[in-house]
């Protein structure tokens, strides 16, 4: 049996844990801790090490879904998590103060991984805070020389997260 993995990343509260739960065939495993620092005002628990879910394929293989911790101080985990990954699902929270700063941060932090694989961006929280709009994200992404899927996403909605993953896969290989 072969195993493959996709990485979910993004700032704290962007919906990584929820998105993995939406797709996973088994209840996802989270290593959440009570938030005690600046993240506490965004959510009561935060992912310290990683989230993990699994999607069983009809071929007998499995696709592992890993979520990176949302706090920058755990970025040492990111290299470990991304090794052998098919691509990156970047979730950005539109309600945050500087979502374009977040975008810049993650594109830089994962630049090597993105070059070797692929990335899709999901913007969450647009129903609550519609600005900046999706087109502005696209323009920001283009500044990085990328033409990649940028989609509005509700992480609780399985269809949205599935579409994100499909967009990632077809970006890697449309044929």
């Amino acid at each position, binding site marked *: 049996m072969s195993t493959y993995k996709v990485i979910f990343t993004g700032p704290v509260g962007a919906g990584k844990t929820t998105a993995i739960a939406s797709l996973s065939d088994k209840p996802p495993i989270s290593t959440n801790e009570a938030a005690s620092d600046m993240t506490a005002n965004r959510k009561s628990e935060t992912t310290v090490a990683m989230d993990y879910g699994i999607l069983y394929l*009809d071929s007998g293989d499995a696709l592992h879904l890993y979520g990176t911790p949302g706090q920058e101080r755990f970025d040492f985990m990111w290299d470990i998590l991304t090794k052998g990954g098919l691509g990156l699902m970047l979730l950005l929270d539109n309600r945050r103060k500087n979502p374009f700063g977040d975008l810049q941060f993650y594109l830089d932090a994962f630049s090597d991984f993105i070059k070797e*694989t692929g990335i899709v961006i999901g913007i969450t929280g647009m129903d609550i805070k519609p600005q900046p709009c999706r087109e502005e994200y696209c323009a920001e992404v283009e500044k990085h020389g*990328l033409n990649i899927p940028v989609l509005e996403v509700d992480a609780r909605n399985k269809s949205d997260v599935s*579409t994100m993953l499909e967009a990632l896969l077809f970006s890697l290989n*449309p*044929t």
Partner: protein
Amino acid sequence: MATKHINIAFIGMGKKSIATFDFFIRKHAEKLCRQVNIKQAEAFIVDYDSSNGQQQWQQTDPEKKIPVILISSQQPEESGWLWVPKPVKGSDLKHAIQDLVRIRDNKQPTHHHALARSQKTGGRAEKPSPQPQDVATDIGKIKTGYNRSFDEEACAGLNLSRDEIVECCGKLDDVDIHDHDQRQSIFHNDKKTLVAPIQAGLRLAKRENKDVEIDLLKTRIILLAGGERIQADLNNRVIRHICAIPLPRRLDTTLIEPPTIEQCHVHKAETVLWQVALWTARGRLPNTLEPEKAVRLMRWPNFTRLQITPHALRIAAAWTQKAMSPLQIAEALEIPQRYVFSVASAADALGLFTDKNSNQHNSYGSWKNSRNLFSSILRSLRNAA
């Protein structure tokens, strides 16, 4: 010997429609037919679009023995009956009635009505021999040797019924682009469709920052001030029907005072425009897009908020990576042309195409040989949906 007229009854029509048809008959087909009540009828004319038309026809003639002309904006799934497309042209209707008479008299009909040539008995028509430009084929049955099972996969898991896929992507077979007639069959005139007034109305709503109304008689579309949102009942079949027919005139866009907003029918403007473009195109290209001309998608469509048609994500992925013509995309992905033309029409309506090739860095430009794995993942995602 003069032909005896045929007694016809109308099914699924209101008083006004019946009066209109009756007027036509008196004026142009008086020697051919007469309007009678259902019990006396030798043939029916059924409004196949009306909600009770199909039902009443079924109740009146459950065995479908009586010759029928179906009138509808879209080609009925049910094959084998005389069909007159809406908007009804007098000449089409007259020819169809002449064929009804011939069917009654056990003669071969002489006119084509897109669907059928009639049989000798019962008015049921035999299937026509394939005509490249207008004959329907089932999904997956095309000339180029694309992978049928993959096509079925592409249709599975979509939030669309088979009929809805046809409403969005049509049934056109792949065409030989060098054949003049076949080539003409893949185009629609986008200036004579609902897409154009919506685009114009959105510009007006943005420029004037006021609500704009497009009156469709039985329903209306309101483009909300700012041009970002549209109030429209996309489940209303009137809109679909209007998309499916060429408009006799340009619809007016009118500035209006703020209406009572029905939030349940408020959508992002791009969602409505994309959907209307799909219904309009039905697997064809707007005549402003050349099938051989290389273009590129400047941006990915927002597929989580747009109707996804078969292969749409693959098409977008290929089209964002490099400039290709619609025909090249169909060939490269080994998919029916109609699916590419559908996405092309919708993307064009949103202004997503450029003819400039990308100078952007595509980090994963080399398409990897991973189809089996990806197909497996997609099946898992869609089966679980």
